[in-house]
């Protein structure tokens, strides 16, 4: 039971977009430094380190490499690989590490230089690593094809409309242009999404996240440190995971995924329900994904996830703001960094003071990470105060 046992003491993200003068490790170091500054901590306070993986800089033992790069000799260190959801897994592991005394202060940092650190061919090749090498890749899929097949089935069973998907992308961009660190500076329309180049039908270019150079970081520690911090911490109220498959061919269902289970664990631990959530940072790699997650997490009724986004309820000023930084679709997506920017954003929103994109009610945040093809799920609930 991790409720009230752990705080996120500081958050940071790197320069984002195209950052050709920084390596992937340098992006992680920059995010780490900013998170430590945000917490009012020094690098030598860190005795635990969790990171993910890098396709652009595929070091063997990346966690240990990053520790070396940062000048750390941690007593707790690992690299985790659950795709874009790795930051959620890292928060879960870090929380268990600090509550059991394996480490006092765990730095979590994830990301890489996906936009400028690899050629286009290498980028495409990286996207084939998600498919099963022997029984899926022979048929020519890239990641969007997997999500397109989910989308197609979802639309068939639940009547989700193509326009509903487009609204997800439009809303994400609307939020991203309000973020000072976002590489996206101009709004898009539903027509822009529908007219963008088809990638894997029914998904078009603007239904898909773009590739960035990006890293994010956060600091996990115990509540006894709260009084010494430079900024208000966020409290971990609840967290849950569920793994149902890796390859889409073996998904138990294309309309029911593991977010129901991860969400119910997180809600139970937190002692709150979907109606208590003030805002949410959902995973966002393709437009169908936050619709599915909103439904599975009880933020929308089944079948009405699309309407939630189309109606404007997920706007900053709406009933339930979602993806207030623009998410993967319009803020950043650099492999394992995918889920971390939602955690960083949630902590900032809980504190308040995010000016143009500050949500009005900011006591309880829900963050959802997923990895693979909706294969792995982690739901996190953070509070502005101790629960």
């Amino acid at each position, binding site marked *: 039971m991790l409720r009230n046992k752990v705080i996120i003491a500081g958050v940071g993200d790197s320069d984002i977009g195209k950052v050709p003068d920084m390596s992937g490790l340098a992006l992680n170091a920059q995010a780490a430094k900013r998170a430590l500054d945000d917490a009012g901590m020094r690098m030598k306070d860190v005795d635990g380190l969790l990171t993910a993986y890098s396709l652009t800089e595929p070091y063997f033992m990346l966690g240990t490499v990053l520790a070396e790069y940062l000048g750390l000799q941690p007593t707790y260190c690992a690299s985790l690989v659950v795709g874009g959801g790795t930051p959620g897994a890292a928060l879960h592991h870090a929380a268990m590490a600090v509550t059991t005394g394996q480490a006092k202060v765990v730095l979590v940092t994830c990301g890489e230089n996906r936009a400028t650190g690899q050629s286009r061919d290498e980028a495409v090749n990286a996207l084939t690593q998600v498919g099963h090498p022997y029984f899926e890749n022979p*048929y*020519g899929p890239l990641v969007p094809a997997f999500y397109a097949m989910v989308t197609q089935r979802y639309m068939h069973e639940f009547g989700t409309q193509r326009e509903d998907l487009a609204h997800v992308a439009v809303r994400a961009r609307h939020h991203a242009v309000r973020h000072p660190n976002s590489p996206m500076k101009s709004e898009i329309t539903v027509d822009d999404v529908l007219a963008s180049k088809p990638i894997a*039908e029914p998904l078009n270019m603007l239904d898909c996240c773009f590739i960035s150079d990006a890293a994010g970081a956060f600091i996990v520690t115990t509540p006894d440190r709260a009084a010494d911090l430079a900024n208000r911490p966020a409290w971990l109220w609840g967290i849950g995971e569920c793994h149902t498959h890796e390859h889409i061919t073996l998904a138990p269902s294309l309309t029911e995924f593991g977010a129901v289970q991860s969400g119910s664990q997180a809600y139970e631990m937190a002692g709150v329900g979907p109606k208590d959530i003030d805002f949410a940072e959902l995973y966002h790699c393709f437009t169908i994904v936050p619709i599915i997650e909103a439904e599975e997490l009880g933020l929308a009724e089944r079948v009405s996830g699309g309407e939630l986004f189309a109606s404007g309820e997920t706007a900053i000023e709406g009933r339930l703001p979602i993806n207030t930084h623009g998410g993967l679709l319009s803020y950043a997506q650099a492999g394992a960094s995918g889920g971390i920017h939602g955690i960083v954003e949630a902590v900032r929103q809980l504190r308040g003071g995010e000016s143009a994109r500050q949500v009005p009610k900011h006591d309880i945040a829900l963050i959802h990470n997923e990895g693979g093809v909706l294969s792995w799920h982690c739901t996190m609930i953070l509070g502005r105060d101790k629960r």
Partner: protein
Amino acid sequence: MENSRRDLGPLPGPDINADARTYWAAAAEERLVVQCCDECGIYRFYPRPLCPDCASDQATWTEVSGQGRVHTFTIVHRAPNKEFQAITPYVIALIDLDEGPRMMANIWATTPLRWPLATGSALSSKSAMAAPGCRSSSAPGINQYAPQQGHYRWRW
């Protein structure tokens, strides 16, 4: 509707590891085989040593009918390599075999740009989304299946 390697271009062959060897060896002979658990009788795909339902390590490779239904599909415009790029747009589908297991496949329409599955009603389980009656063609390498009249050919 004779199928040939020329129709599809020189698509890359599959990577094959020890788990996959029996499957692809049969495919080279145009036989679709999957494992069937000796203890619980459940067919499984993809091949692996333990039954995912009962964990038995006893299974028999069994030839299946090649008939099934399309659970979902996508029309791909952005391909992973130049061989597939040359045949875009092409269809990837998940097909539920009549025997139970789900597998990924390509489906080839005669006129790919007018793909008839793209209508909503075609996804009904009682519609032409089903791909029954597939029979093998003479294509080498990865197996090609051609349909009987009114059905779609698929490539597994």
